[in-house]
């Protein structure tokens, strides 16, 4: 790392210093790619193995982590702590990752407010996932939760405290005591109102103690796979346009979710599902991609969510005719109906043409009929929020809202240890050398629906789990297995093709088409015909990638190129999401269909099990979807994998048998 830094410093010095005598090559105006690596030559070598146009810098590490959010940082310094020579490749500076926006809290059964047991947290999470979560992974996460939170606190994270000085826990996120029978549990620990920000900064600060090599603003292009084994990553350095191959025995993917496939999402512009796409291109499956968590009232254009408390305090949803349409869909609850009912009603109104705005694609949330003092007293700050994000005065105009994507439950399938798995011959098979954690992974603790405050926990527990698994099975300084010298050439060919693409559709146009299609067809309102139409449209949009046009032909900080690469990744995620949703003919958790409103399990759990015949595996839907994509055609193939129903230790914590999910 220091040698690469020195090299780029040298390059920049050569460009800037015009007053002194400069070698002839630099004066030409075109950059010389053959920069020399000074210092430790052992770690980085320049080679012409892939292409003479794109010289490649080869690095060798014990482990490489892709992504530096909560999970990536935890994995990176966990590995450095264990003595591995680790590289952390990230396209953003670590403290700019999307984890910083997570303002909620972390759940852990510390028992500071009342008697608590992690087994009750286990039960709540299994129930929340609508029995699609792998119970061994959930067992692992909830059992490790108290230790993880205490560890974070020892790293210096300033949790809020009770009078005695213990961590203050509040009630949040569907948590209960005594397996649902003991009332509300207080398990959510927070740091004022910036838990994610604080977590990320604590982890980053801690990681600087160890000698992890950070490769910041390096866009990971692809995994280097050989014989089904992952041998590293190939990445583009955005700063100077050089290609870097990171060879490592162990690769950890922690690249986050793919919210940007939808038109309205709370995620940053950088949440483009790069890790999922890399794994898909390597021929491995992604799991449960159809489960996407929506929130009914997100501000149109901005993507921030307006709290349900607005409706609780009397706010109403209005369509283009000025009608309070919730009265038709939920005559009793009206605007206070549950989130999925509200989301679906809003989407139906928009589909039927009663949306507002120039494109008639959203509805209004009206608050100006409430007295302003009441609004200011009950919901302080909302006028500020509405002005900043929606540009409306909340006491005079309604706020434009539409259902918004918030979290992706699906991702790269892993086991509870964090190792990426694939399903071969009716069995889970570990992919050697590849691990995943965080929102990018689906160790399936969230199953079909994520509970609030569980995702920050997921990050730290599974980030640590990846590091522990690697430390358990490998030693630092192990000899790397041989790799073909031309590994990664397809990625570079793709890069070159995109860089000089001269079709007719711009990246932004294709991206907007994809986002609008996904928002209309694969959002909250899902029926067979709508999804099928969406699948066909997405297929057509995928084909338009051939016709893409980019404008920037340079190689230094080419954001046009990087956005096009991100678009390719987004499209891979989007086709998997919509095709998996089209095939899953039931309603479970966040995937709710109008034509199949019930959950289809092996038994009908609403009736007593006695006398019921168990449905065969291919006729019920309590299974994980595994989706593969043929990169050239965009065709999606789906397979299924059973849910793991047994916990890690049946004596210690019995698994929870499926039941009807009602709160």
């Amino acid at each position, binding site marked *: 790392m220091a040698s690469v830094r020195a090299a780029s410093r040298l390059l920049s010095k050569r460009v800037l210093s015009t007053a002194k005598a400069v070698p002839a090559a630099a004066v030409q105006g075109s950059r010389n790619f053959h920069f020399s690596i000074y210092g430790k030559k052992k770690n980085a070598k320049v080679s012409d193995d892939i292409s003479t146009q794109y010289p490649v810098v080869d690095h060798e590490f014990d482990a490489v982590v892709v992504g530096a959010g909560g999970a990536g940082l935890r994995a990176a310094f966990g590995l450095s702590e264990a003595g591995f020579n680790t590289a952390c490749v990230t396209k953003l500076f670590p403290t700019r990752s999307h984890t910083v*926006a*997570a*303002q*909620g*809290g972390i759940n852990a059964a510390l028992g500071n407010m009342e008697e608590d047991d992690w087994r009750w947290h286990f039960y709540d999470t299994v129930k929340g996932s609508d029995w699609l979560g792998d119970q061994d992974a959930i067992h692992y996460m909830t059992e490790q939760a108290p230790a993880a939170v205490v560890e974070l606190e020892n790293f210096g994270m*300033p*949790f*809020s*405290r*009770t*009078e005695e000085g213990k961590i*203050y826990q*509040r*009630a*949040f*996120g569907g948590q209960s005591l005594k397996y649902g029978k003991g009332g509300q549990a207080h398990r*959510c620990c*927070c*740091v*004022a*109102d910036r838990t994610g920000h604080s977590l990320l900064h604590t982890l980053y600060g801690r990681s600087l103690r160890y000698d992890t090599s950070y490769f910041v603003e390096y866009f990971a292009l692809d995994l280097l796979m050989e014989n089904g084994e992952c041998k590293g990553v190939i990445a583009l350095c955005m700063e100077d346009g050089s290609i870097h191959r990171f060879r490592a025995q162990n690769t950890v993917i922690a690249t986050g979710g793919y919210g940007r496939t939808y038109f309205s999402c709370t995620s940053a512009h950088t949440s483009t599902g790069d890790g999922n796409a890399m794994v898909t291109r390597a021929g491995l499956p992604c799991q449960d991609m159809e489960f996407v968590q929506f*929130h009914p*009232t997100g501000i149109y254009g901005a993507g*921030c*969510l*307006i*709290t*349900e*408390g*607005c409706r*609780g305090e009397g706010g109403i949803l209005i369509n283009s005719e000025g009608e309070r349409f919730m009265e038709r869909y939920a005559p009793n609850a009206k605007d206070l109906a549950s*989130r999925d009912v509200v989301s679906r009603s809003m989407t139906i109104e928009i589909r039927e043409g009663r949306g507002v705005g120039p494109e008639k694609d959203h509805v209004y949330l009206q608050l100006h009929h409430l007295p302003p003092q009441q609004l*200011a007293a*009950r*919901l*302080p*700050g*909302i*006028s*500020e*929020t*509405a*002005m900043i*994000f929606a540009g409306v005065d909340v006491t005079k105009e309604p706020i434009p809202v539409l259902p918004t994507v*918030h979290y992706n439950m699906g991702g790269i399938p892993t086991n509870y240890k964090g190792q990426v798995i694939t399903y071969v011959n009716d069995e889970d098979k570990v992919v050697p050398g590849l691990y995943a954690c965080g929102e990018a992974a689906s160790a399936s603790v969230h199953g079909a629906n994520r509970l*609030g*405050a569980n995702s920050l926990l997921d990050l730290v527990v599974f980030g640590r789990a990846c590091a522990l698994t690697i430390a358990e099975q490998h030693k630092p300084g192990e000899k790397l297995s041989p790799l073909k010298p031309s590994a990664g050439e397809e990625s570079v060919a793709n890069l070159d093709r995109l860089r000089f693409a001269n079709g007719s559709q711009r990246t932004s146009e294709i991206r907007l088409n994809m986002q609008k299609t996904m928002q209309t067809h694969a959002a909250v309102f899902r029926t067979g015909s709508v999804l099928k139409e969406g699948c066909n449209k997405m297929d057509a949009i995928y084909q338009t990638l051939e016709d893409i046009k980019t404008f920037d032909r340079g190689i230094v900080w080419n954001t046009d190129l990087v956005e096009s690469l991100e678009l390719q990744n987004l499209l891979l995620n989007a086709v998997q999401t919509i095709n998996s949703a089209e095939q899953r003919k039931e309603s479970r958790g966040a995937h709710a269909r109008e034509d199949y409103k019930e959950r289809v399990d092996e038994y009908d759990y609403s009736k007593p099990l006695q006398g019921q015949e168990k449905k065969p595996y291919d006729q019920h839907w309590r299974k994980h979807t595994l989706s593969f994509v043929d990169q050239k055609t965009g065709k999606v193939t789906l397979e299924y994998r059973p849910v793991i129903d047994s916990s890690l230790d049946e004596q210690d914590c019995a698994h929870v048998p499926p039941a009807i999910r009602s709160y």
Partner: protein
Amino acid sequence: MSLLRVCSRQLFWKNPAVEPLFTGCLRAASRAVNDKEPLKKAKTPKGRFDNLEETSKDVLEKFPDDVNPVTKEKGGPRGPEPTRYGDWERKGRCVDF
């Protein structure tokens, strides 16, 4: 080098924007409180947020000693309880649910 500094300092004080500030301070100190003349601003267009400088106080007030009087939580979120509507709310924005 020092000449440069002296020249720039002179230029600084002669700067029309700074003079009224300086004299304004003196004026405020010498005169009564109710005579607050608005400082001369250059004739640039006024943006939507230009007037907010006066009322830039945060809507959510800090608790005394940072201790929430009802729940006795130290270092917790300011303002009303974020989870009171079932989701995590701050300034009308929902951040987790």
